[in-house]
């Protein structure tokens, strides 16, 4: 069934290339529909299966990675299948869960071994009460709203097959607790805010960095109405066994025509030494399709990152260059090379690529 859906979806993607210039290729039309007692059940390529009037959508994504790390054998990973289940009960109440089935298959090109270590994890699970645009409440496990990258960190939705280093060392990717958030519209612009805290043990915690016991944080983001530019700041205090760590961050985003720039500065200090560091990255994306329609969907990506851990650990300068090709909205192909002046557990050099499919 899923293979058939993928084939049909790819066919619809080919058709999508015929759309008039200017049409939004959002994947918002059903690939097929079936009438049922709960209304029309629609499948939208790369946007999931919408189950009639129930308000439930079941979709997700999957990624295959091909890595040629310097000094290591090449590896081909069927990394994970992630299921996304947004469920809107009423205008005000909704539920969301992301379930990841990871470690599916890994092929070592040097030894010829195929390994599988399947794990199921609850990446996100939360309920929301939406009063209006200005006031919303969330309870559960969600992505920690620090900076830009950590709010959408999954492979298909980033420009490179590698992540900035600070994501794995400076903060916990998830928060298990509660958040208040919303948007105001001063003038023509948008001011978004987040206030949040962790007061439960994390559900399915990540291993790096060590899971915290509690936290409190906030984020402000001010930007243009359509998001062409935005500046943001983040703050978070995290506690582990009575010791506190403090994070501050600034970020910026700017898009003009075919060019997109994004940068984050993060500094962490306090009594949790593994997290202490400062880090900055600048990423640029150029839409090559603006040059000629033959390159439609192709993007040139470059990123420079400087990471400076505290203590005796040396600083690291990291560069990523690559191409991202989005032939149709639900297929994302990335290939890039990462170089750096040091190779560490977090900074792996070499060729990294991935193919992701949204379903």
């Amino acid at each position, binding site marked *: 069934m899923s293979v058939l859906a993928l084939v049909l979806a790819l066919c619809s993607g080919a058709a*999508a290339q*015929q*759309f*008039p*210039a*200017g*049409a*939004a*290729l*959002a*994947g*918002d*039309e059903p690939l097929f529909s079936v009438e049922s007692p709960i209304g029309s059940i629609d499948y*939208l390529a*790369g*946007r*999931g299966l*919408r189950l009639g009037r129930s308000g439930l*959508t079941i*979709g997700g*994504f999957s990624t295959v990675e091909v890595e040629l790390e310097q000094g290591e054998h090449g590896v081909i990973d069927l990394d994970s299948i992630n299921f*996304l289940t*947004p469920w809107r009960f009423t*205008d*005000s109440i*909704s539920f*969301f869960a992301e379930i990841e089935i990871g470690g599916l298959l890994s092929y070592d090109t040097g030894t010829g071994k195929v390994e599988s270590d399947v794990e199921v994890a609850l990446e996100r699970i939360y309920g929301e009460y*939406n*009063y*209006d*645009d200005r006031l919303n409440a969330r309870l559960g496990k969600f992505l920690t709203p620090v900076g830009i990258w950590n709010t*959408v960190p*999954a492979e*298909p*939705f980033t420009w490179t097959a590698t992540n900035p280093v600070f994501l794995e060392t400076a903060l916990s990717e998830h928060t298990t607790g509660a958040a208040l958030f919303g*948007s105001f*519209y001063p003038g*023509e612009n*948008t001011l978004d805010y987040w206030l949040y805290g962790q007061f439960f043990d994390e559900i399915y915690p990540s291993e790096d960095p060590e899971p915290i016991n509690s936290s409190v944080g906030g984020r402000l983001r001010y930007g243009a*109405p*359509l*998001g062409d530019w935005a500046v943001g700041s983040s703050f978070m205090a995290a506690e582990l066994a009575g010791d506190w760590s403090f994070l501050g961050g600034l970020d910026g985003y700017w*898009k003009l*025509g*075919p060019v*997109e720039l994004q940068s984050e500065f993060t500094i962490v200090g306090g009594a949790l030494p593994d997290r202490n560091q400062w880090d900055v990255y600048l990423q640029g994306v150029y*839409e090559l*399709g*603006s040059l000629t329609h033959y390159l439609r969907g192709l993007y040139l990506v470059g990123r420079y990152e400087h990471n400076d851990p505290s203590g005796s650990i040396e600083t690291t300068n990291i560069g990523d260059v690559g191409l991202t090709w*989005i032939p149709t*909205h*639900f297929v*994302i192909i990335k290939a890039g090379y990462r170089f750096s002046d040091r190779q560490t557990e977090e900074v792996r050099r070499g060729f990294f690529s991935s193919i992701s499919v*949204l379903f």
Partner: protein
Amino acid sequence: MSARAALVGVALAVSLAGGAVAGELVVIVHPDRDVSLSESEVAQIYLKKRSFWTSGERIVPVNRDSGSVARAAFAEAVFGNDTGLLPVYWNRQYFRGVLPPATLASDEAVMRFVASEPRAIGYVDSERVDATVRVVHRLPD
């Protein structure tokens, strides 16, 4: 049949099949909704950056089908020529559990839906508008 009559017939057929925009595009809501919207507010609604009417009800935006002339004209008027990153935008919204607006296949369908759904917003050719909906914004040609 004269050549002119044949040409008119073909033009009419194309217009009916492809949904060509004869007049200007206008943004419409239910007649009971007393609002006016700026172009950036319309854009925010269609990007789901703005989800609630000031009365507290959730906004239900509807798009025309993506192969239609009206959809292309709307996208150009509201988002300019800068639509290359829209698929990336909607992919990221999908990860957040936010789905793009639903689509309807004709101006008539948009008119019927908006006239019957107090939370709805849509856009149609101005020549199709009647008293069953309220115009809240006129898009530039």
